[in-house]
């Protein structure tokens, strides 16, 4: 066994209760997703800490987007439990009670528990307050930027318009709600620096602006957890650093963030917690310092042809040295995923 890995395992063992395990907003437990004969995600468990920025990384095809689609209800998982919590702590008793019943969720003022694998996608956004963005941007391109943000506030506006009846009659209640919705949209547009384009069709915006708008749109649903699928893909370095600031701001508003990202600059800089997937299995879980030194991660990433996946020079240097060490110790096939037993 590699000495580095042993040392690191000992380190994790020394602090068995990480912050995200003590106070998670989302726990994914034994998640398995099969598509016919293909197992995209296999017995995956991890937690997303309250108020954290959590990154889900891994080589192409590792199953990251599948996990996302399970969490946001676009896929129904084959096995496993996905629990979203509003309010502090594990709330283990409530979770067990809801799981044993045939209910989908239990909402209360002091803390609510949602079993996401039982809920349809739109309810996950509406009730459990999980918002998401998409890897290939999905804006309403024929509608203006402002309209995009108003569509995101559909559910509160629907209630304010008394399910359309009050709105048709033009009751003052709805008009006030509409004004507030526009104010909220404006504040997010200012935040993502798109206020000057508010009346332009969303499809006319440049790529980077569309990414920012999609995040603003997701934030207009007032989520407790924001899931971002490769938000930095296709952004230039300046836009990337703006994205970092935006994500920090979102965390500041009390929303937890779960992101899939290939850009290690973004991931290492802002993430409190990183989960690494490879071939649908979790291979590492910890803070950025831990993950970047984990030989399994290094092996998984060096196994990918495209070494640019890791684009921080120091990290790459470290990886090369660690790989040499691994080879010296007999793992001639360091390019492949290390056998499971070796690291335990």
């Amino acid at each position: 066994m590699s000495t580095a890995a042993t040392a690191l395992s000992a380190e994790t063992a020394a602090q068995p209760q990480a912050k995200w395990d003590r106070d998670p907003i989302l726990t994914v437990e034994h998640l398995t997703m099969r598509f016919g004969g293909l197992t995209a995600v296999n017995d995956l468990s991890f937690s997303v800490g309250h108020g954290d920025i959590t990154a889900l990384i891994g080589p192409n095809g590792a199953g990251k987007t599948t996990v996302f689609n399970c969490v946001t209800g676009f896929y129904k998982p084959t096995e496993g439990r996905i629990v979203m919590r509003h309010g502090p702590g594990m709330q283990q008793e409530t979770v067990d009670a809801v799981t044993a019943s045939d209910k989908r969720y239990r909402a209360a003022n002091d803390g609510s528990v949602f079993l996401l694998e039982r809920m349809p996608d739109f309810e996950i956004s509406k009730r459990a307050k999980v918002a998401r963005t998409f890897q290939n941007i999905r804006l309403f391109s024929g509608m203006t930027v402002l309209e995009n943000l108003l569509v995101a506030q559909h559910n509160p506006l629907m209630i304010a318009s008394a399910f359309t009846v009050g709105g048709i009659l033009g009751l003052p209640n709805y008009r006030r709600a509409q004004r507030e919705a526009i104010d909220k949209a404006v504040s997010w547009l200012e935040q993502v620096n798109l206020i000057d384009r508010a009346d332009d069709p969303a499809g006319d915006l440049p790529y980077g602006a569309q990414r920012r708008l999609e995040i603003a749109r997701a934030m207009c649903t007032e989520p407790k957890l924001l899931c971002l699928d490769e938000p930095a893909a296709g952004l230039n370095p300046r836009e990337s650093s703006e994205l970092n600031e935006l994500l920090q701001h979102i965390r500041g508003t009390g929303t937890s963030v779960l992101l899939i990202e290939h850009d290690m600059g973004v991931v290492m800089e802002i993430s409190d917690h990183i989960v690494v997937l490879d071939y649908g299995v979790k291979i590492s879980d910890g803070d950025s310092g831990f993950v970047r030194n984990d030989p399994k991660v290094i092996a998984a990433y060096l196994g990918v042809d495209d070494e640019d996946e890791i684009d921080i020079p120091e990290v790459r240097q470290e990886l090369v040295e660690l790989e040499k060490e691994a080879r010296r110790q007999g793992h001639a096939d360091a390019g492949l995923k290390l056998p499971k037993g070796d690291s335990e």
Partner: protein
Amino acid sequence: MAADNSAVPASDINPVGAQIEREQRAAATPPAAHNTFDWKTAARNAAIAAFIAGVLGFFFLGMRTDIAPGGLVITYRWLVLLFAVALVFLGRLLLETFIFNAAPALARVIAGLLFIAAIGFMMAYDVPGTRQLNRLLVGVGLGAAIVAVLYLVAAYSRRAPAAKRKTVTGPPTWASRAPGIVLFLIAAGLPFIITTLFPGQQRQYIDLAILIMTYVMLGWGLNIVVGLAGLLDLGYVAFYAVGAYSFALLSTHFEFMGFWMALPLAGILAAFWGIILGFPVLRLRGDYLAIVTLAFGEIIRVVLLNWYDFTGGPNGISGIPKPTFLGMDFTRGEDGVAAFLGIEYSTIHRFIYLYYIIFILAIITNLVTMRLRKLPVGRAWEALREDEIACRSLGINTTNTKLTAFAIGAMFGGFAGSFFATRQGFISPESFSFLESAIILAIVVLGGLGSQLGVVAASVVMIGGIEMLRNVGFVNNIFPGFDPVQYRMLIFGFAMVAIMVWKPRGLVTTRDPSAVLKERKKIGADMVAQGEGH
């Protein structure tokens, strides 16, 4: 070559690939400008087109088989072929001069020649019973029309690149609303315009106005489903039928049930059937959605046709009561509306009243739709048309949203159907064939998906146009042997194709945003998605 071009600064790096091509393009002489006209090319292209027309038409036009004693004989019609070839040659030359290369001087000469030719043609045509002066006037009109069309087409084709701009900016002034307001005022005063201008044909024209208005209302109703929610519905006539039969059956079974009482019930029943249709099609996309809605429309018609005990089958239902005005009928007697209002009785009053009923129903449809667009449910419809998956990620219940679109669209179809029943006094399943669905859908598509004004324009063009073509028998006096009434459907088909070629996204192609922060900008149709099944 790039090196020869002094305008491009010398570079150390040799240009490669696309860069070379770009620089070569920049260095090359600019392409022939619009106003330079090459006689030889134009003549050669026209000759080629004429030759192709000659080859293609050799058997089709040049020869004809006729039945003769003892078998078929071939008669030769070289004159017809020659005429066709000359026509193609001339047409191509016109295209070359007016559109492909603008040659102002030549264009004027040709326009002048055409003008004179039109007059000459009319003067030379000696039709018995027409006076010289009349023919001259028609000739001048015809010539002017040809020249005007040519110039308009030329101007439009030159302007086309500018028209493809993505966004059209415009302040929310009265000017932008003017077309709608003018149309509204015309429609509101239409019966009086008709009775004043055409006292002889008032009944016919008011009937036509009622028909157009019915289709405007149906178009607006279907626009909710197809234009806003983006769900292609080929069976909209089913709701029209449900509305019509609801009123017909209610009124014939219950004495007290008049039009005004049955109208809301018919709307509710149609909305109910809209939801019933909505459920099975919720999961369907694209072509499958279109096929199921088409089937639904046919199922309703076939049930009406075969459920003899209930619907009367192919015999239909007759004796449907006329609408009353404050409980009074439009009759000559003491208790009639005319006596109540103190005006002289005329049969036309009832038609004017029917016109105003459908006018108000249509206006209500429009106002409700415009309002719904600015409400969350309307925005959700449009968002659904743009991207259903994104909608679900934002917590929008797409099932309910689709069902409300189907239900509200169906409700207006039901109102219109109920009006149809009371206007006709008799309904049968024949009135609710697939052709009706197709016409309503064509109105929505030709008008421009989601556009309210477009629906009006398309209804007037399609319903009004096809009816007006019945009334152009006088053309037969001018061109003996050509009766446009016979070619009505052909002309109609050509018109539809022409609109779709000229404006592929319909007559009105911009989308008005439902909420504005600072400046109202219209959104070009190329940005707007068309939804499922298109």
